[in-house]
């Protein structure tokens, strides 16, 4: 049920993000969603793409430091309180969120939130029990 996120280390200087997006473009990889975390010296680009293996391979070959990180995608209704209901369920069980980002499906009815939990297995378990839709990687990549 987990989704694989591509994490790319980026030095904080002009042009590095552009180089990464160029590599993905040239390999014909589509970015489903992304987020960039930044500090004073470096950033981490987090990507959900349509072809994880290929993205991993081409970025590595181009000299980027890349890793695959397991994250959890949860579908929530795109209306007030959508995210809150998920947070409520996981916080009750003492699960910590390291980071999250979101995107809205093309149909526009639901939002998909990408979570990095400290304990992904337990989180998936709790979410399924609470009738949330945990989106499997395969489905997400092909949206």
């Amino acid at each position: 049920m987990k989704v694989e996120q591509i994490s790319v280390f980026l030095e904080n200087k002009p042009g590095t993000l552009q180089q990464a997006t160029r590599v993905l473009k040239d390999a014909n990889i589509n970015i489903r969603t992304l987020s960039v975390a930044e500090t004073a010296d470096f950033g981490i680009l987090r990507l959900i793409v349509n072809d994880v293996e290929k993205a991993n391979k081409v970025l590595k070959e181009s000299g980027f430091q890349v890793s695959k990180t397991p994250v959890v995608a949860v579908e929530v209704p795109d209306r007030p309180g959508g995210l809150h209901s998920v947070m409520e369920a996981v916080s009750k069980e003492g699960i910590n969120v390291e980071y999250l980002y979101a995107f809205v499906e093309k149909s526009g009815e639901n939002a998909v939130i990408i979570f990095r939990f400290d304990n992904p297995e337990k989180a998936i378990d709790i979410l399924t029990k609470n009738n949330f839709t945990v989106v499997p990687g395969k489905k997400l990549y092909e949206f």
Partner: protein
Amino acid sequence: MILRDFGPTVICCTPSYALHLAQEAKAMNMDLKSFKLRVGIFGAEPWSKAMREEIEKSFGITALDIYGLSEVIGPGIAMECIEAHNGMHIFEDHFIVETINPQTGEVLAEGQEGELVFTSLSREAIPLIRYRSGDISRLITEPCRCGRAHIKMERALKRSDDMLIISGANIFPAQVEAILVEIEGLEPRYQLIVDKAGALDALELNVEVSDKIFSDSGSVKELQKIEQRIVKDMQDYLGVEPRVKLVGPNTLPKAGAKVVDKRRM
């Protein structure tokens, strides 16, 4: 404040710290020249002629160079006389000095440039016999106008090894390497950049992000933890506080050029 209130006539510190003091005094609108200071004794790190002039001008003092080795005595092996202000008299009643060819170990004639070698005469606990300083200099045999008969040495601006002197602390790149390999998952692919930040030395340490430290989480927190660990270990073991910067894989030169010294002497 202490300089003003106690009115010392001599100051002794590193030259970069003296310049730092001068800047601070200026910022506080204090005129150092109005203080009682007469002479400054500066050493523990290489300094340029321009730095000397700047110190003399801002403090209104004569700045003298002192030479020492932490392993032998610290400061106090040689010092300039106030009369000639040129070349440091070696205290020959306490040390025998020789210059050698650092490659062959052959003793050179006085006056030829080579590595300074010291033998202590008066130290009882840890006497040193023909101790290689690693400093490259030249002995001056011409008589000095101050009348002292002790031989003089020129300022040692070169090393026979790769030791760096940063804010008075002695650092070998191999020590930095040893610190990096001790940290789980790090590889010693690094570059040290030494520069001046105002009057003081600034050390920047670039370290490549290895597969291992980037592998599991892709989280900022983990990488920052590593940065902090490097800074702490450098402080604890080497007494310097570098600015650590993680850089992408294979972005640093593979061999050589592990040290870039941008300070101009």
